[in-house]
């Protein structure tokens, strides 16, 4: 059995969280509230450090003036705490939303849309596997068509193809679930390893 207070503490917290699997209890509540506090604090510390390293130091020591935009924007965000001037925080907020949209659109157009099509159109339909692949892509995509009248002939057709796509998606979802179970079990194995090897020392 370990003599290190740190290991004991870690073991107690591990058991505290697992106790939730039986039901909510004071020990879990304590650990949960502690963790939420620590988590927010760690993020604040990392955020502060990063702000300092990334924006303040280059601005202050190297004269990279353009960082001041970020710092001024940040201070504008903080007006949120003062009701009469709260509206000022909307200015950087609007900016953040815009940039997020720009960035989202950018990666969607390139890696998620264009390049995925590119790697599909180069497929030659000369093996069964490739034909299956292309058919599945087409059917799945058909499921995501929205703007049609379900009662019309075309609508019925799209719905039919989409239904095949739906079945294909179910295969994919099953596969994901199946392979995820393994990944998740590893995490418990990691904790058990800690409890029985590092803490109790009963496992070689």
């Amino acid at each position: 059995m370990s003599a290190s207070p740190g290991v004991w503490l870690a073991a107690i917290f591990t058991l505290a969280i697992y106790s939730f699997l039986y039901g909510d209890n004071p020990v879990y509540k304590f650990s949960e509230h502690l963790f939420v506090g620590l988590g927010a604090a760690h993020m604040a510390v990392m955020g502060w450090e990063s702000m300092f390293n990334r924006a303040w130091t280059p601005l202050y020591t190297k004269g990279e003036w353009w960082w001041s935009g970020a710092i001024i924007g940040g201070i504008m965000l903080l007006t949120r705490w003062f009701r009469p001037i709260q509206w000022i925080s909307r200015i950087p907020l609007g900016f953040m939303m815009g940039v997020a949209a720009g960035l989202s659109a950018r990666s969607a157009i390139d890696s998620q849309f264009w390049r995925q099509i590119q790697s599909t159109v180069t497929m030659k339909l000369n093996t069964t596997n490739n034909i299956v692949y292309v058919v599945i892509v087409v059917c799945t995509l058909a499921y995501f068509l929205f703007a049609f009248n379900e009662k019309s002939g075309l609508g019925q057709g799209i719905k039919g193809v989409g239904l095949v796509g739906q079945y294909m998606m179910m295969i994919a979802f099953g596969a994901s679930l199946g392979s995820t179970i393994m990944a998740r079990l590893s995490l418990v194995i990691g904790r058990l390893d800690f409890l029985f090897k590092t803490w109790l020392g009963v496992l070689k």
Partner: protein
Amino acid sequence: MNGDFLTRMQNIDRRVIYTVVFLVLLFPMFNPIGLPLKISLVTQKAFDAVDALPAGSLVMFTTANAPGTAAELEPQSIALMRHAINNKLRVVLNPTAAESPRFVDGYRQMFLKAGYVEGKDFLVLPYLAGGETLFGAMGSDLKSAYSMIAAGSSALWDSIDGMQDFDMLADCGGGESQLWALAHIEAKHKTPTICLITAVILAVRQPYFTSGQYKGIVSGLSGAAEYEVLARVPGKGASGMDAQSMGHLWVIFTILAGNIAYFITKGKKSSGGDR
């Protein structure tokens, strides 16, 4: 077996499932079964790519390892670090997530213990926030992205001009960082890239391996176990594999049992917990 029992089995208390999961995982940890380990192609290729690097090659190890995913990523990372040490590679350690610096400290200790000199044979970069933005900045101008590192403070850092000087990029994480590595670094500098990931995301990363963008993938605890075998650095990965197999077997058993019970009692009304 009567219908009542079967109905109850379909709505079995979760806590029973949980308890058995614990026991089933524990049993093989105490009594190793030694089930066969099949080396997968992705791991083999990852190992080959690292093993082919001549001594002194420069590797960038970007890691988003965090306590939540460490059970999978840590054994992989340690195996890779030990392989790098055995092959005398120079490594730049780069924590890219807010929770990673503590893990990088651990690798730093490993290198120091192996006789590496900090700043000459290996280097630890400070953590910078930014996620994708950071990868973009690294790809376009590594030195200015880390402009807070003073010139002259490290011989290794001074000898590097940018990502083009690296012989390999190894990205570790359970999020999107492997895609950023591809988009901003591999695409631009053709740096051979491997990734160390959680098994969950293997399904979505595999297409990038097939297309040759990743030279190899180490995925999950099984990937770690395979890498340990290939690199001859026994560690935590291999010891967990039996437990995984047993855990899986139990889950499959519950699913089959649940289905059999469901089909026998089909038509009867089942209450709750069955949505």
